[in-house]
């Protein structure tokens, strides 16, 4: 089943606008409030929603890897990737939402809508490139942006309770002089902490395709704009369904919570000169988990026969990626810093030693 939002005014396709946070019609300029629309859809569901779905679209074929959907705008048959839950028709560009991949077990509970538009994303990315000291000039100049795609990436957000008991041997070191002697006094302490910590909505990406490391670096998201999921938010963007369940990904969040808990306990031992953790027992219990779609702008670059991918947090604008490094610039910068350090060192030694040595 394909969901497409038609403008009630003129019948054209409507897409989500990151600027206004509403559904927008390009042809007549109508903005529609998504929360009101949702109510409208619920009415449909209680009434003839099934008929509405079967009337407007149908799924024709599906196997493990791809599925075919028919665009109700132009009638074209669209072959989609098995994970895609929202896309645009490759023939007429109409937004298509694949409802069967957003229902039942696959139904998201939360979403952070895009708040950075495509043109803002491009602009911000260009600025970021300008600041890259080690980016090759050829990369900066050439416009090899192959594609820029806004995608809702599936995440699990975990609410956790972490109970941790930590035993550590800590020292306080005190040095003083006593007559002819330098005295070092090391006091040993047996330190124990029992912490009961609650963490809210630690995100873990549930998409197979996305690089975990890059996804982690995109954090943090501002949960102030975390909304209940509603399909119109996806209109005009790409979206994917999760590949891993919350249980399958629990070890990843467990590892993080473990580290967080240890960090917290250690932060209460900052008055010691050294901390040596002898034993720890950390129990992590999930309290709640939310299947959530988070906005990501993806930039694909062609440079010297290799693809370079960058991601931008579609809410905050933070950029991560693996940029190409210019060897020439690295060498010049290295030489520059080394020379500067050398000169500074010389000046310092001149001040101290009174001689250019």
């Amino acid at each position, binding site marked *: 089943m394909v969901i497409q939002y038609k403008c009630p005014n003129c019948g054209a396709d409507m897409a989500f606008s990151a600027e206004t946070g509403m559904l927008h019609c390009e042809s007549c300029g109508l903005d529609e409030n998504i929360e009101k629309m949702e109510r409208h859809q619920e009415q449909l569901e209680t009434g003839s929603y099934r008929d509405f779905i079967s009337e407007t679209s149908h799924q024709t074929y599906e196997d493990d890897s791809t599925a075919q959907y028919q665009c109700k705008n132009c009638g074209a048959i669209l072959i989609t990737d098995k994970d895609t839950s929202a896309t645009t028709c490759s023939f007429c560009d109409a937004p298509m939402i694949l409802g069967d991949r957003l229902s039942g077990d696959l139904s998201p509970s939360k979403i952070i809508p895009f708040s950075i538009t495509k043109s803002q994303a491009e602009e911000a990315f260009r600025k970021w490139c300008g600041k890259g000291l080690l980016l090759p000039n050829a990369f900066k100049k050439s416009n090899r942006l192959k594609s820029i795609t806004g995608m809702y990436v599936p995440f699990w957000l975990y609410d956790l309770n972490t109970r941790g008991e930590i035993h550590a041997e800590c020292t306080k070191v005190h040095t003083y002089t006593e007559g002819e002697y330098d005295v070092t006094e090391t006091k040993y302490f047996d330190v124990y902490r029992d912490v009961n910590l609650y963490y809210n909505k630690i995100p873990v990406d549930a998409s197979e395709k996305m690089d975990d490391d890059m996804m982690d670096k995109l954090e943090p998201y501002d949960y102030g704009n975390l909304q209940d999921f509603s399909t119109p938010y996806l209109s005009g963007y790409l979206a994917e369904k999760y590949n891993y369940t919350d249980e399958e990904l629990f070890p990843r969040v467990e590892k993080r919570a473990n580290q967080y808990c240890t960090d917290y306990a250690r932060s209460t031992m900052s008055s010691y000169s050294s901390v040596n953790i002898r034993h720890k027992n950390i129990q992590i219990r999930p309290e709640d988990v939310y299947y959530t779609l988070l906005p990501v702008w993806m930039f694909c670059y062609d440079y010297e026969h290799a693809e370079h991918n960058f991601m931008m947090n579609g809410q905050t604008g933070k950029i991560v990626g693996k940029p190409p490094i210019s060897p020439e610039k690295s060498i010049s910068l290295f030489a520059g810093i080394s*020379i500067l350090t050398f000169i500074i060192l010389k000046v310092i030694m001149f001040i101290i030693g009174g001689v250019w040595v």
Partner: protein
Amino acid sequence: MIKTQKHSIAKKGASLFLLVMVLVTFLPLSFIVKAATDESIERIYDYANTLSNSEKEDLEELAASYYQDTGNNYLIVTTTTREEYDYSHSSSPEEDCEFYSEAFYDSFLEKYGNSYNNCTILTIDLSPNRYADISGQGDLKYKLDDSRCKKVSVKISSSLTAKDYTEAYSKYMQLVNRYQKIKPGINPDNIFLKIWFQLLISVIIGGITIGVMIYHSGGKMTASGQTYLDRERSSLVRRHDHYIRTHTTRTKRESNSDSSSSGGGGSSSGGSHGGSHF
């Protein structure tokens, strides 16, 4: 086209790097202009005949050129008998050597006048005692304190043992000339005063900076436990900090008598002294 341009940029970078390094390293030497000497001052008194005539001439010339640059007289006196100058003898031959050096200095001043009072003296005692004493006089008494004198004497002792006198003497002049430029009280052999060490530090700092930049070029992790912590519900339930024991270590401090710039130890002599056997 693009390739060659890149290479020339890299080459430019590398050659600029070399140029600056060379400049900074050798700049201090560039204003040491060796002027022709028409001095008639004798600075080498080789009573023990350790040098040939031509070797002695070369060293005189070297000492004269140092005088041109610094106004300091780097003197050398060698003896087998310690009888060329009058001094009151003491119980130890080392002390005698210092007294001998002082007596030599007095005669040098008598001969050339007090305007030549900034001297260092290398006294080579080739009597069975085989002792090299280095002494600083005038301003050099402070610039070349006891510990620095001692350092120079240790550094030339292997050449003296090998009877390579020209090597030992020119090294002596070179060392005292280097040391007297460095502010008193600082160890002239401090590793931070070594060019290779300064270069190493510069290169390490440059390398680390670039390494960190490359490592962070793809963005860095900014979310931490604090980002997701629910502060209202979280708490430190129990804690204890039990004192167990104290471990104490005592190390004797190095005595700073080395850095003092007073006169020779125990002797009544006027200059600074330091020496070693060879």
